[in-house]
């Protein structure tokens, strides 16, 4: 009997809490008809944004506004759609939160901005531009498009990006790439770590640089690369037996190497001012 009363009280309390939290939230469902390669921009200062590939010719938006201190401004002009979380006076990082779930055509070009995020983009083949002050950023299963990311402190994760034109600028956020390949992959970090795990394929240019952040690249034994690594004030190490090449700069032993592996189809540059650089061989 005592147990039943206790359980009932818990249920009541949870229900009240749920009502209290739900009372301030507003759900908005939007649907837009679009043509080929539409452009969708989302500006949401506080709150998560998830963009996934959905059906062609339509954009479906689900937005949950956490209070009446924030409004959703929408616009559509031709093939362009804009979504802005408009903060009203008194809004803060709690009351100004809006959660976005957006489905777009796979060939859509998407621009996303958020201070807190997190930001997640998945299965797109169009161009993706993401700016996040502190937002964790993840891009998954992309192909054939540009992926441009700018962040101050948010961690950046790119997974399974093929034939991409990737450019990332990060100050303190760590950048992690797994199975990322393309004609162009560039990461410019300040103190954030750069981690790459892939095959450096597609006969591309891979350019990773940092000020103080460590750079770690893991590649398989079959990788075909011309790799130049140098840290002005940090250790540099390679697990591979590279065919040595000369470098046109003066460097102390252990702070630089230049060599090729296989047919040297891709160019890999690993530069840091004082970070540690390690080219690892993948253990399978």
């Amino acid at each position, binding site marked *: 009997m005592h147990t039943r009363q206790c359980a009932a009280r818990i249920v009541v309390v949870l229900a009240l809490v749920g009502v209290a939290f739900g009372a301030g939230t507003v759900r908005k469902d939007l649907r837009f008809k679009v043509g080929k390669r539409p452009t969708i921009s989302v*500006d949401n*200062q506080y709150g998560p944004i998830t963009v996934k590939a959905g059906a062609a010719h339509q954009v479906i938006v689900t937005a949950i506004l956490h209070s009446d201190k924030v409004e959703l401004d929408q616009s559509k002009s031709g093939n362009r759609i804009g979504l802005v979380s408009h*903060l009203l006076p008194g809004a803060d*990082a709690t009351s100004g939160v809006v959660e976005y779930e957006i489905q777009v055509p796979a060939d859509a070009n998407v621009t996303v*901005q958020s*201070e807190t995020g997190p930001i997640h983009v998945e299965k797109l083949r169009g161009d993706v531009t993401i*700016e996040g*002050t*502190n937002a964790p950023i993840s891009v998954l299963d992309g192909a054939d498009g540009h992926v441009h990311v*700018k962040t*101050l*402190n948010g961690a950046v994760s790119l997974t399974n990006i093929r034939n991409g034109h990737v450019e990332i*600028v990060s*100050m*303190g956020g760590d950048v992690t790439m797994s199975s990322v390949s393309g004609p162009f992959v560039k990461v*410019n970090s*300040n*103190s954030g770590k750069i981690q790459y795990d892939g095959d450096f394929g597609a006969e591309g240019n891979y350019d990773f*640089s940092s*000020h103080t952040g460590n750079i770690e690249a893991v590649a398989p034994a079959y990788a075909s690369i011309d790799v130049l690594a*140098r840290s*002005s004030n940090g250790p540099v190490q390679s697990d591979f037996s*590279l065919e*040595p*090449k*000369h*470098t*046109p*700069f*003066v*460097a*102390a*032993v*252990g702070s*630089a*190497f*230049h*060599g090729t592996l296989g047919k040297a189809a891709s160019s890999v540059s690993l*530069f840091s*001012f*004082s970070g540690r650089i390690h080219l690892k061989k993948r253990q399978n």
Partner: protein
Amino acid sequence: MNCQEFESVLPDYLESGHTSEQQAHLSSCSSCAGLVADLNFISATARQLQDAEEPSPAVWNALEIQLRREGLIRDIPIREVVPACSSSLLDFFRRRRTAWLVPVAAALVIAAGVKLYRPFGAGDTNPVARAVAPAPETPANSGEDERVLSTVAARFPAQQANYRKNMEDANSYIRDAEQSIKNDPNDVYSQELLINAYEQKQMIYDLAVDRTGEQ
């Protein structure tokens, strides 16, 4: 005609053309041909440099002082130093008092480069000594930086410290890269780091302006 005889008539050769005998010697003597080619090259290059980009007098004075201090040049009339030099070259050098410093400076730079340049290969085992000057103390952010930070602080006080730290990090990167370039002006990779550092700073500006401008 031998080399000594050719050198004795070199000023006339440069100034007023050549005789068949001089030309015959030049055709058969690579040493004298090289000398003539060098003189013509120096003269032409000095003119081009002078016309293309005239450094400030302070640069020339500093270079001259340094060369005098090292005993590489002395206060001797030009005519005494190069008695065999052609009058046209002398006129050129007289007209442009310091023009001769151009090839001299170029030669010194090349000599220093040859002396210091040491390609580094993956198979090398001996460390190469490198003088690295210490980076200067961290200066404050620039006035423009502070204005941007003030704007951020006014609109988003909670973000001020975040932006300030990142601005300082970007400036620190710029200083380190600049110092590396000062240590080795020909280091293209340090130049690349500097470009990246400025790209980071530009991003901070962009983010700050975007956030403060849209509200």
